[in-house]
């Protein structure tokens, strides 16, 4: 059984591409055959985040226009042998592809035996968004704990539902535990109260993500990264496992622990 999952958010810069890369890699590590599609034509990033930029020969638009075969455009990630990337074209724009063509592309990938096809959606609600969701079976909505991102996520959920993609799942990205504790940041309850959809995962703000993104190595493969652990949990939940949400405890120093004991 194969499934097309679109990763979307509405607002830009909340971590769609990073999440796509990590979910895709995580699924590949779980021994699933995964295709990552970068649907952000004209502003491609997924190849950079995956560290595969220098291997692009053909792209999504080439496939759609028939300049090459689908297999030729798929870049095999040598680190994770079941992971493939279909990069976006950089010299074209969103209108180079139609929703019907995207649908066909997703169908073709399904027939090629891919277990999961992850579509990295561009920001916005225009043509690019419509293309990205056209072939999707499921949607994952990314938001950060900011009112603007949550508002856009709400809009996106409405549009997804209007297009028949019901029950999208939520990833709350870049949560800062210390700020939530001080009451300076929205927590997961505040966000789900507005969005009213099921939560797929909560990813803490993690410097390691910036490092791994710049290096082109998805954090999910880093055993020491908190965010990587969150993405590993998300992957397992996508695969149907019941995984409890991570506990976000600040690393307590010995001294504060001691203080806690004495204050009891």
């Amino acid at each position, binding site marked *: 059984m194969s499934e097309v999952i679109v990763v979307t958010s509405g607002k830009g810069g909340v971590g769609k591409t990073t999440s796509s890369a990590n979910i895709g890699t995580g699924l590949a590590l779980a021994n699933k055959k995964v295709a990552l599609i970068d649907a952000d034509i004209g502003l491609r990033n997924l190849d950079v985040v995956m560290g595969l930029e220098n291997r692009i020969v053909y792209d999504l638009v080439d496939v759609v226009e028939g300049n090459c075969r689908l297999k030729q455009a798929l870049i095999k990630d040598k680190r994770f042998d079941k992971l493939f990337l279909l990069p976006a074209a950089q010299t074209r724009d969103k209108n180079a592809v139609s929703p019907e063509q995207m649908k066909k592309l997703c169908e073709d990938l399904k027939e090629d035996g891919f277990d999961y096809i992850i579509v990295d959606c561009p920001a916005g609600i225009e043509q690019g968004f419509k293309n990205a969701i056209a072939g999707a079976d499921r949607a994952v909505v990314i938001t950060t704990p900011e*009112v603007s991102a949550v*508002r*856009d996520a*709400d*809009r996106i*959920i*409405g*549009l997804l*539902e209007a297009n028949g993609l019901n029950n999208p799942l939520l990833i709350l990205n870049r949560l800062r535990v210390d700020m939530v504790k001080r009451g300076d940041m929205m927590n997961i309850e505040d966000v789900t109260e*507005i969005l*009213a959809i099921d939560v797929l995962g909560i990813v803490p703000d993690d410097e390691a993500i910036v490092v791994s993104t710049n290096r082109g190595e998805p954090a999910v493969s880093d055993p020491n990264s908190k965010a990587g652990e969150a993405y590993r949990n998300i992957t397992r939940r996508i695969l149907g496992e019941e995984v409890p949400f991570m506990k976000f405890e600040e690393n307590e120093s010995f001294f504060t622990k001691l203080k806690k004991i004495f204050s009891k």
Partner: protein
Amino acid sequence: MNPENLVIFKGTRDGINIIVDKEADFNDIKSKLEKKVLEATKFFSGAKTNIFFSGRELTSEEEMDLLEIISEKTQINITYVDTKESNEDAKPVEIPNDKALDLGSLVHEQLKQHNLTKFYKGNIRSGQEISFVGSVVIIGDVNPGAFVKAGGNIIILGALKGIAHAGCNGMRDAFIAALTMRPVQLRIADIITRFPVIEDKNAPLRPEYAYIEDNQVYVLQLA
């Protein structure tokens, strides 16, 4: 009396005139209408027309009953409805084409608009809008960035966090009720108010309703 004459269809330049017998039992008229409409399904299919009732004074409930039969049994697109005898001079209200066949939009001026109600189940999300000539009842939340507009009253069985506009055609005694009132803006008829920001996140949530008095919007607790 010939039972064929209980209901007579008469095509006129302005639409279809449905002449209803003055004396007969209303149930007989209903069944006769249903039969006649079914016979003429082909004729009606896809047609766009106006409908007049004449021959007898119909209450608004009776009229709705008859219209229901017509819209259920046929593919006819009713653009407007009028009852000739009860209101000779009344100007019927035009209904936009896309609303045709939706029974809720079979409205004319004489029918009290706010008594027609649209029910909506589900959350209204940012960018979505619910708009209706009559009243609106929503079972779900109205999120920030969403908009609910009604000619009549608005009742939200959920949280109102977006914008609600009741009595948008000027009905000043319209009200807006919600289980949780946290709107960005409240509008009733021609009056627009900003809602005070409630800082305390843990403030008790009680159902409230808003109405106009002395050109001001008041918000009171419901019971």
